[in-house]
């Protein structure tokens, strides 16, 4: 992986973070914290890893991405817009009446969204179904599912984990956005999911633990997942909720509240400053 490519991904992730801040700010509601923690992962998937054709969204051989933690819709919309699935201008319609950008992703509203999600715990199962379909048809597309660490408290996640290992779905990759916070507080205090790596391993998954903000590590984990045969892979990405905005980082309050106009300006200034520093 050359430096230029890594720089390019970092710049794209920064742009996506700016979109997240602007769109949630304008909507006056939404989930910035968990969108920002997942921004580097989602950027890597859409701008490095996945085989997709924005001009042909229903291409049968495409890789699929399921945002199981559907409340992080802003990061998905920002990535889809940047990738060319729909005009960037449309991002400002988030959560507004008649918009394709529903508060949580809806596949019937917006092309490029692979599954309607939002009710936690269901996305991984739908990814299992897509991966099974790939196996039945002997196709080589891959399926990626992004989970929240609060989300894995849902029992259905472990039903899906069992099924994916049972059916040896090595075309399925789970990515856990392990930011340690959920609405009511730290996940460890609300209902501890730890030790997460041991749990996925015990369920028969290949597990890789990485820093979810280090592009090199994200890329190499995705490569490692490709090499695994006969079992699904889970990338546990340690992340920071609100990543990139000083006053949002690791603050539980930013799970589901929108920045006001002043906070939007401050956040954008920080993000733009970061771009200048990097260049």
């Amino acid at each position, binding site marked *: 992986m050359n430096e230029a490519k890594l720089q390019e991904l970092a710049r794209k992730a920064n742009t996506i973070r700016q979109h997240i801040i602007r769109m949630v700010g304008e909507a006056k509601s939404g989930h910035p914290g968990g969108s920002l923690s997942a921004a580097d992962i989602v950027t890597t998937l859409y701008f490095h890893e996945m085989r997709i054709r924005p001009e042909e969204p229903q291409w049968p051989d495409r890789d699929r991405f399921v945002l199981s933690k559907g409340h992080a819709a802003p990061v998905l919309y920002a990535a889809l817009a940047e990738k060319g699935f729909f005009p960037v201008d449309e991002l400002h319609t988030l959560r507004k009446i008649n918009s394709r950008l529903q508060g949580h992703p*809806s596949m019937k509203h917006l092309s490029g969204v692979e599954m*309607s999600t939002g009710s936690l715990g269901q*996305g991984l*199962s739908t990814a*299992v*179904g897509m991966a099974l379909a790939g196996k039945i048809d002997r196709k080589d597309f891959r399926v990626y599912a992004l989970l929240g660490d609060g989300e894995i408290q849902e029992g259905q996640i472990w039903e*899906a984990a069992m*099924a994916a290992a049972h059916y040896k779905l090595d075309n399925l990759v789970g990515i856990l956005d392990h930011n340690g916070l959920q609405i009511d507080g730290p996940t460890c205090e609300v209902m501890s999911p730890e030790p997460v790596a041991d749990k996925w391993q015990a369920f028969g998954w290949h597990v890789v633990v990485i820093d979810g903000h280090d592009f090199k590590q994200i890329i190499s984990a995705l490569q490692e997942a490709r090499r695994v045969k006969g079992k699904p892979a889970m990338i546990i990405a340690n992340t920071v909720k609100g990543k990139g905005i000083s006053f949002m980082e690791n603050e539980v309050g930013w799970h589901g509240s929108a920045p006001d106009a002043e906070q939007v300006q401050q956040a954008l200034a920080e993000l733009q400053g970061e771009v200048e520093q990097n260049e």
Partner: protein
Amino acid sequence: MSKIATREAYGRALKKLGHINKDIVVLDADLAKSTKTIDFAREFPDRFFDMGVAEQNMVATAAGLAAAGKIPFVSSFAVFASGRAFEQIRNSVAYPNLNVKIAASHAGISVGEDGASHQSVEDISLMRTIPNMTVIVPADGPETEAAVQAALEIKGPVYIRLGRLAVPVLFGEDYKFELGKAAILKDGNDCTVMACGLMTGVALEAWEILKNEGINIKVINMHTIKPIDREAIIEAAKETGAIVTAEEHSVIGGLGSAVAEVVVENCPVPMERVGLKDTFGESGTPAELLEKYGLTAKDIAAAVKRTIARKK
């Protein structure tokens, strides 16, 4: 009269259609021998997935399969298929309008000895409230086979309610099943009985009883609960001036409610609903249970007479 359980007919239909449509995949939650998906599993092992005792994952997995172009039939007992996985059906299947068929067997109290935990008397109500969902309750074996075929022809979610108990075969080779179109089985002008599932056969017995007493009822098999055949209901109300519904389900939210909604909005006439009166069932033989909870031909006949008496 020969008898066959609608779940048997379902297994038979799946196996037959599996040869014709290669996109069909079947999922079960450790009940393949009971729901009869075992017939399909043996014929097409590569397109059958036992998902274990995990209905929520099964339903959402089916959504993923459908999103990738498959036509999944998911099967379990009606209590679990509709109740345990309700929100998966709502959010992962119906909201994105995915092509998933839910075949729910062992519905109603006629499942018998297993008792209330396994007797689904709320599923029609739960399923018909979900947007995009089609709800079919076949009355016998041949109608079940036709319903499975019809479900395959619609692109979207369908709930098919099936029973454990062998029920009389009412329809012959010439029976024409039309989704969403009520089937008039007997004509009469004193009152209309609209029934679904095994209660359709029971309604025909009630027709016989009443005929001997000089009362002529119209009997309608309302196999599709959603979309309900509004025209047939309005026409029956106008022609006969009285309506009785009969279902092996709670009187709250099921066929009776669906019919009542149309009746009050369009053509108010005296009406009664035969079904479970806001109660759970219990253990017993199917016959004992149908008797105890008021789901016999005598009960329908009595309801008809009471309803006729209320006509102005």
